[in-house]
């Protein structure tokens, strides 16, 4: 088959039928012996091409429109916000000729997707930092995001920052920003979408609207603002260090852990504070401490797990800090032939931070003999009710600033961004 340009109008003549339409690109990973045609009625079908198939070019090309844009209306009565785009589907558009999805973050496009914005805030700046899938984020990206957000919050004209982000690792980024930017004076909001914004049901809409309200609110915290339930009625403002993704697909995938969300943010802008432990908007000068020692790792303990992996990490990759997602109150195998204790003991230049794979609740160094054996080791720290992901980010951040193991242990238990709650309240 000769190569016909994508988008061309064609007629395919086969033994028993003829059909007209436009050639469109095939999805990735498909074999070569058919072409995908968009029929005039909008449906796509694939037709196999053999030596008897005739294809006639009909000259015309498919007409694909530009993504619509809305006029930007700046309202001097409204507060200014900045938007930093890092990836994900919160603001995306489909290119119908290539069927590819790309970010739609020009203010004109945003106003088109979220027309309500014009009554909430002025999007003073939109910054396309990068377009990285959640799973491809690296600590160096966290640093870039922190630097960009820091620059924005230092602008007196800007009331708050929204960062659009893929959802899978958003809670790592929110933890990183919580540590990297000290002395925060205004809201930094991370948000995303579980349903892409090409569909009318996308959660992006409410998440973005509520994030805009959050960005101009009084809550000077790094937070994740996403659906509180499957309903389109309000979002939660989760503290950046006390939140985690709990569901692969649901809108309300993010839940606060060992903490209450700070606020409910309703679609119409009403804000209901449900956790008074937050910093209010202030005149502080924020400080940027965006660094990260990448020689950190995270391991999960499970029955029959191989502790030798610790040696490999330390010897081959010079790993300096390891978060162990231990069982229950903070256990690893201690009394059997696959005990982790000798390996932790042996690697005494590496700090081991113990969190629980139970996710909810606190680790405890003394309840059982086995936790006592573990917690007695010089290079082990039990991380209270900290989330494993948060402990991981915190450890990398601290390692970049402190080499002394004893001091590191202390710092791990120092509360920098409310990542530790010392009291466990009873919550439903």
């Amino acid at each position, binding site marked *: 088959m000769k190569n016909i340009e994508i988008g061309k109008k064609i007629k395919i003549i086969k033994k028993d039928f003829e059909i007209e339409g436009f050639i469109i690109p095939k999805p990735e990973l498909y074999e070569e012996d058919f072409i995908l045609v968009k029929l005039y009625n909008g449906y796509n079908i694939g037709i196999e091409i053999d030596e008897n198939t005739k294809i006639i070019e009909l000259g015309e090309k498919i007409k694909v429109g530009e993504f619509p844009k809305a006029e930007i209306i700046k309202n001097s009565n409204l507060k200014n916000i900045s938007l930093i785009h890092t990836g994900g589907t919160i603001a995306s558009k489909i290119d119908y000729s290539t*069927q590819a999805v790309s970010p739609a973050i020009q203010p004109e496009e945003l106003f088109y997707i979220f027309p309500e914005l014009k009554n909430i805030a002025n999007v003073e700046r939109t910054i396309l930092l990068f377009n990285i899938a959640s799973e491809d984020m690296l600590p160096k990206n966290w640093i870039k995001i922190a630097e960009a957000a820091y620059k924005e919050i230092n602008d007196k004209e800007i009331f708050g920052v929204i960062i659009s982000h893929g959802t899978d690792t958003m809670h790592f980024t929110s933890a990183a920003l919580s540590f990297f930017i000290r002395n925060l004076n205004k809201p930094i909001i991370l948000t995303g979408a579980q349903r892409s914004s090409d569909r009318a049901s996308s959660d992006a809409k409410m998440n973005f609207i509520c994030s805009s309200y959050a960005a101009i609110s009084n809550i000077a915290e790094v937070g994740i603002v996403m659906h509180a339930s499957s309903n389109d009625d309000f979002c939660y403002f989760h503290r950046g260090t006390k939140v985690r993704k709990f569901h692969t697909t649901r809108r309300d995938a993010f839940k606060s852990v060992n903490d209450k969300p700070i606020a409910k943010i309703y679609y119409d802008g009403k804000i209901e504070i449900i956790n008074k432990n937050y910093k209010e908007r202030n005149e502080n000068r924020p400080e940027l401490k965006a660094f990260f020692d990448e020689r950190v790792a995270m391991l999960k303990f499970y029955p029959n797990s191989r502790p030798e992996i610790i040696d490999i990490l330390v010897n081959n990759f010079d790993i300096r800090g390891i978060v162990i997602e231990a069982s229950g109150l903070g256990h690893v195998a201690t009394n059997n032939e696959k005990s982790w204790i000798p390996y932790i003991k042996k690697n005494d230049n590496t700090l081991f931070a113990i969190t629980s794979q139970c996710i909810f609740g606190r680790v405890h160094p003394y309840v059982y003999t086995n936790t006592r054996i573990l917690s007695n080791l010089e290079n082990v720290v039990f991380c209270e009710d900290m989330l494993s992901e948060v402990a991981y980010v915190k450890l990398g951040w601290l390692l970049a600033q402190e080499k002394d193991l004893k001091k590191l242990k202390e710092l791990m238990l120092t509360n920098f961004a409310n990542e530790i709650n010392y009291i466990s309240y009873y919550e439903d």
Partner: protein
Amino acid sequence: MKIKAGLEIHIQLDTKEKLFCKCKTTMKEEIPKKIIKRKLHPVAGEFGIVDLAAQYEYLRDREFYYEYFENESCLIELDEEPPREINKEALTYALQIAMMLNCKIPDRIQIMRKTVIDGSNTSGFQRTALIGFDGYIDVDNKKIEIKTVCLEEDACAIDKEENGKVYYKLNRLGIPLVEISTGIFEVENFKEIEEVAFNIGWLVKTIKKIKRGIGSIRQDVNISINSTRIELKGIQRLEDISKVVNYEVRRLLDLEKLVKEFKNREVKISDILILTDKFKNSKSKLIEKFLKEGNEIYGLILYNFKDFINFKIADRTLAKEIADYLKAFNSGIIHSEENLEKYNLKEDFEKIREELKIGNEDVLAIFASKNDIPIKFIKQKIEKLINGILENETRKANSDLSTSFLRPLPGSARMYPETDLPLISISRDFLEQIKISSTPLNIIINQLSQKYNVDKNVLKEIARKDLLDFCQEILDRNKNLNPNFVFQIFLNFEKYNLDKEIVEKKRDDFYLMFKYLEERKISKAAIDDILKEIKEKSLEEIIKEKDLIAFNKDELKSILEKMNIKDKKDLRKLFENEKIKKKIIFEMIDELLG
């Protein structure tokens, strides 16, 4: 008059599981376990524009509440989980149907998302795939084009709508639905449209796996007159098609008449007036209620409309027609040419007329609404009419067989690929394997008409009652019965309030009845007695109660002997016994009927 018509027939497949998830397709649950609230937002399609129908829906700003039924809905229906791979059982049936309708089958099928924003799909689109194209069906020796056969997910059924809140049932969402679209054909007698729909439905039933009951087969009719296209949705019964089309054609012709009349007069429409202040002191209870609910009162002056506002459009006045559009926005119209005393509004209207210098030939119309969206919408509609434009619309069939505005006709710019699912490869071997043979109705009727020597129209009528198979079975079982007699019995079914469903339920009784007839155990004249009661009672009960067992010769002989009847003179004695009299009369009738 000739119109152009096309049909879209939707048929629910009776599969075990839904099209894109493993939920049951039973639709039996009645009490929702949860109700989820959602909003939908219009999105630009591939041509960079938001579809007109979607825009309209956005203006209506409705909230959608989804009733979640256990076992019959899951996160996929809730738009909280991506679809699973397409249900192979459903795909097989749909391909079988496409092949029966002589369609070509694509080598690769791509599932598409068709934008639907009336809330009936939680996602904001309906998943649909074209699985057959370029087919045909013969109907009464006329070749009707089958443009496409699509396999799609059924939408939610609406439960109720109140104050801009729409309640949908999630259990119908995702049930496999085959959509068959015909090409455009010209008809003069609208019954022909029913005929086409019936023939398609009849053929499709060959695959047996079709859901039964109300709403399991739904037909939409597209009609176009001059350059106006109307899609009529929700016609529940086949025999209503011609009546609904007839109403709509009348409506369109009357509108054309009105538009023509407009040209002879200088009709105009004013800008939108906000009259809320002028009604502040109104004595009208209705206005008081509107204001209390937080509505504004808007007004329009329709210049030179006095003769037109009550112009008859099909069975409604123009004012009623306007009200029909406003209903979609929870609003309505009150105008100066109706009985204003009913609302205690005469004074208010007169005052405003004077203040605004509204002429005698002009109509003042007022509307209550929370915002100006409905009035903007209706103003635009009336302006279009004044300019002689009849817009394309999707309308729904009402239970009284009239039609109501549903939404603007969607454009074609509303389809894009379902990116969550791969292409489906259809091998020619697979198609050969699943192909089932079927014969179109008209060929079957020709054959049966010859075989039994029965009029074709009788057979068609029996087929309509969906009893053709059963009749054939009866005739196969009872070779001595007269086919015409058997068909006549079924033809008269309505007289006894009987239908296919009762035959299904009482199958054995019906077998027995015809067996007795064949064996002459009962007489033909007894059928009337049986059919009258068969719904409530068993055959044996009826026969016993009414003593319907016919005489045989030996029996008669012994009765005559017993009663000592020896010659014709004594026959009178025989008739003194009512039971015996009845049996004898029945025998006589049978003789007469042959």
